[in-house]
């Protein structure tokens, strides 16, 4: 029943497309032999292609609407696959073990190039989780997040260059400086929301980048800082491959630490205050939430992870310059959060993996890489606007005497 109507609509779309593309896809004037070529098989390709695309599109839209309707009809919230995995211990533990095993074995099975990509992906998980605190949980749109990343990276590079401080000393310093810059950014934007906040943070990110680019005496300008030492391990000398693996495991450990901390934070008092602040500031104040402190901690804690990731980034690549900290990078991290699912930790992890690994493995498509990537983003937002994993918040229950009825 449905399919007949759909097929007819898709058929009309394909006819329309064939007509529209007729002049460019079918007719070709051959100027050498002075004849007009009619490439009819191109027209068939366009027709079949647009028919299929239109049909699939309609089918997906329809399914999505049906899904929404079904969800509305059934009283309880729909349980997603990810939620089920998270809640059912019998699936959750083996899945976690398998993932952990895969992460441990991975660097011994693949080439150095692959390990490096994976390390980058894990760093983006850290960045994504950090930004998730600010954007996903506290609802403050931050487009200058990469500035804190830059602060971390330059902290290590400069402290090492001038004072010879090693990686392990710089790691906490980078995190602390990140937090400090987070608070610095936080103060002027306390009153702002939404679009205004986005513009100010965007400006802040650009200021940091431009300072790094132009203050030659301080940051060595666009030529950057090279020969940054890799992190040491009790003075043991590594081969290049061993070092890559070492950094990989280091990043994995810090990522796990990040996941743990962010998870604790989200379910804490301050986490609830962030959630509430995102929804209604005035109501929040009426409940006695300290707006200033809550917002500043969101900025500071978000920036802390960017600082950490920055230090690791400098140590991993051994070379940094301002070109690594452009607006595009901020947007990329924001994409991770939005695509993965705002406020959801599992979502951000998946988002980071998809957004870092997809462009890498799409290299086969060469110049179509970014185009494909863009299409994937658009399709994602149409069909899963909540992200890969829509946020499942922990619900707080006080069990009263009559709570057995649920």
């Amino acid at each position: 029943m449905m399919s007949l109507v759909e097929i007819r609509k898709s058929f009309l779309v394909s006819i329309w497309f064939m007509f529209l593309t007729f002049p460019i896809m079918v007719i070709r004037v051959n100027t050498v032999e002075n004849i007009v070529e009619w490439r009819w098989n191109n027209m068939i390709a366009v027709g079949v292609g647009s028919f299929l695309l239109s049909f699939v599109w309609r089918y997906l839209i329809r399914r999505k609407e049906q899904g929404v309707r079904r969800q509305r009809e059934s009283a309880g919230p729909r349980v997603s696959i990810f939620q089920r995995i998270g809640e059912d211990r019998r699936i959750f533990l083996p899945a976690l073990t398998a993932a952990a095993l895969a992460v441990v074995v991975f660097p011994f099975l693949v080439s150095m190039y692959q390990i490096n990509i994976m390390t980058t992906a894990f760093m983006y998980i850290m960045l994504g989780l950090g930004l998730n605190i600010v954007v996903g949980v506290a609802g403050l749109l931050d487009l200058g997040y990469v500035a804190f990343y830059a602060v971390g990276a330059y902290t290590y590079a400069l402290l090492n260059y001038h004072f010879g401080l090693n990686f392990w000393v710089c790691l906490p310093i980078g995190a602390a400086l990140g937090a400090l810059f987070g608070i610095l950014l936080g103060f002027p934007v306390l009153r702002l929301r939404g679009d205004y906040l986005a513009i100010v943070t965007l400006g802040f990110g650009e200021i940091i980048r431009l300072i790094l680019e132009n203050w030659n005496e301080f940051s060595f300008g666009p030529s950057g800082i090279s020969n940054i030492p890799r992190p040491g391990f009790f003075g043991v000398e590594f081969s290049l491959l061993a070092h890559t693996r070492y950094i990989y495991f280091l990043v994995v450990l810090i990522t796990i630490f990040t996941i743990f901390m962010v998870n604790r934070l989200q379910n804490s008092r301050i986490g609830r205050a962030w959630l509430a602040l995102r929804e209604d500031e005035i109501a929040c104040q009426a409940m006695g939430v300290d707006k200033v402190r809550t917002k500043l901690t969101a900025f500071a804690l978000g920036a802390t992870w960017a600082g950490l990731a920055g230090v690791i980034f400098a140590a991993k690549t051994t070379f940094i310059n301002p070109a690594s900290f452009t607006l595009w990078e901020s947007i990329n991290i924001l994409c991770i959060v939005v695509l993965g699912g705002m406020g959801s930790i599992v979502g951000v992890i998946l988002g980071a993996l998809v957004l870092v690994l997809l462009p890498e493995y799409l290299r086969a498509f060469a110049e179509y890489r970014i185009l494909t990537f863009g299409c994937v983003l658009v399709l994602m937002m149409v069909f899963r606007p909540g992200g890969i994993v829509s946020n499942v918040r922990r619900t707080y229950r006080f069990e009263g005497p009559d709570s057995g009825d649920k």
Partner: protein
Amino acid sequence: MLKIDDINTYYGNIQALKGISLEIGAGEIICLIGANGAGKSTTLMSICGVVPPRTGRIVFEDREIQNLPTNRIVELGIVQVPEGRRIFPYLTVAENLDMGAFLRKDKAAIARDLDYIYDLFPILAKRRHQAGGTLSGGEQQMLAISRALMARPRLLLLDEPSLGLAPLVVKQIFEIIGKINRENNTTIFLVEQNANLALQIAHRGYVMETGRITLTDTAANLLANEDVKKAYLGI
């Protein structure tokens, strides 16, 4: 309990309150009535520090509070139910209530208060795992009041609890406001346009006009006052 002494509050250059003075005794229900834009909500906002007064004093139990930040004022026990309810739409009912107890740490007492609230509004118990935004207007108002009660207020500030609600629901809510006052001895400061109903449950009332308090009396006298009748009761 609360004494407001000649406060002047401004929004930018515009003066909204022109020398307001009023007094609220412990255990009272005080009602502030007046037309749109008279400054009723601003008075509430000044008390809880969202829009602090430029001059004048606000004394809560022998303590000047006009310069304290909002969260400190809430800690002292002055809790507001903001105009237009302002519940958290994406948090569940239970989480909304939990936010009300944000400043409290005594888990056992919180659980007890929660039971009390579910007794007071059985509908909220039924809806406790539903998102706040999916409730009806009346239920949202109940939730907003309950959320404020979860903070164990000593002085509850209610801003237009009847706004946009059906007459029957309004009546129900006013009954419960009276009940809260009787059962917990919670002092209530009520800002309301629905003067008739508000004066019926209040002990005393103040009438406000363009930033000034023009009249104050017991609720019964105000209900009988000819001017008030003409201006606010529509009789």
